[in-house]
């Protein structure tokens, strides 16, 4: 009889710990299996001593707490489902612009962003500028300078043998085809290519099309993805930077 009571006591403690841990982790009260906990308690109950009944009561109190949370959740959801649409439409039709703006302001918790340049960005900018100097043709005294031709640049490997116009046309066609089906297309899907150089040119083509106002790009931080959409008829231009390395990793 004593052995059974010890086992029951251990089981009871385990149940309490399990319930407390589940309660701590679960944000949705319906994720807690109440039936399981009550079933387990029912099995242990005949073996418990008076002393153990305190732990038993503690578990029951926790379970009651979960049921209370579930009740509040149902109450909240039902009021939102039934009253929500009605209140929303009522507010739209009765409140003035000023009042509507005030209602929104009261419910708003804007994201904090400090739009200042970091030291890393300053260094990156300096690095970029110093790299550009390499391409400045310095006039060396005693030597004749001349203008370098496109073919010579190709031979030096400074520019690639690629028909940019064709790349732009192909990319635009592919985007148009995909947008006509889904209204939006994943940026990484369009630039996907095994060759990094081709990927770069496709990204360049997208950038060109966006600058010309033929397409628009937006970022969804929850999905961590850039999407291409049809260019809006009006709106304002905003420059965005897309890391090719990051999008390549996402592919």
């Amino acid at each position, binding site marked *: 009889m004593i052995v059974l009571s010890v086992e029951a006591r251990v089981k009871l403690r385990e149940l309490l710990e399990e319930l407390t841990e589940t309660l701590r982790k679960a944000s949705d009260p319906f994720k807690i299996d109440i039936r399981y906990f009550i079933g387990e308690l029912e099995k242990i109950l005949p073996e418990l001593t008076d002393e153990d009944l305190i732990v038993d009561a503690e578990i029951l109190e926790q379970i009651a707490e979960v049921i209370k949370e579930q009740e509040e959740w149902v109450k909240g959801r039902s009021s939102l489902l039934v*009253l929500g*649409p009605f209140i929303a439409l009522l507010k739209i039709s009765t409140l003035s612009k000023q009042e509507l703006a005030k209602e929104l302001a009261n419910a708003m918790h804007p*994201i904090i962003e400090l739009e200042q340049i970091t030291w890393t960005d300053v260094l990156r900018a300096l690095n970029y500028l110093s790299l550009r100097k390499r391409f400045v043709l310095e006039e060396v005294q005693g030597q004749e300078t001349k203008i370098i031709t496109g073919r010579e640049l190709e031979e030096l490997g400074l520019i690639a043998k690629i028909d940019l116009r064709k790349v732009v046309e192909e990319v635009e066609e592919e985007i148009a085809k995909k947008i006509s089906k889904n*209204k939006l297309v994943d940026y990484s899907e369009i630039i996907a290519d095994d060759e990094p150089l081709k990927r770069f040119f496709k990204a360049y083509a997208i950038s060109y099309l966006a600058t010309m106002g033929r397409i628009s790009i937006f970022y969804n931080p929850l999905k961590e993805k850039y999407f291409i959409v049809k260019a809006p008829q009006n709106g304002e231009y905003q420059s965005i930077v897309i890391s090719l390395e990051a999008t390549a990793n996402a592919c």
Partner: protein
Amino acid sequence: MPARIPSAKIRKAARILLYRSRGKPGVKGWELRKFLGENFVEVVKALNDSLENFGITIKIVDENGKFLSFDEDKTALRKALFVPVLKEAPTLQELKTSGWRIDDIAILAVSLLYLLSRNSRAPRKQLLEVLHSKFGKWRVGYVVEKLIKLGYLEEDNDDIVVGWRSRIEIDFKKLLGIKTE
């Protein structure tokens, strides 16, 4: 007793979370882990405690826009987005000072209220009709496009849906005037 977090780490977390470019708010959990180490949750939690004094809090949002707590499972936290937001709602005057126009805030309010009354989604044409009836045709199209660009609204085929930024920034129950507590 929780482990003491070095202040240098808290400052680093503040730099990562607060210095952002406009188009890309928030930092993913896996990025924070990369910069702050395995105990990134504790570091961000300590930063959150410090930021409380300035009326700033860090919200954790999963892929579906659901808010998570610091005690959530670490795998879920690694995938989640950590975003610093104002703990208290700003006044209308403060919003105006930060560059908002009253008309634009009202257009966003009506758009969100209308979408919430329609299960978070409505055809673009219908939403624009509602907005035109309330605000006239001037600027509505421009403001809706701007709100889409900022992430307050999103396009889904011919529909407009509640955007990711609204899910993070706006307390919908408060906007509707429904509170469970």
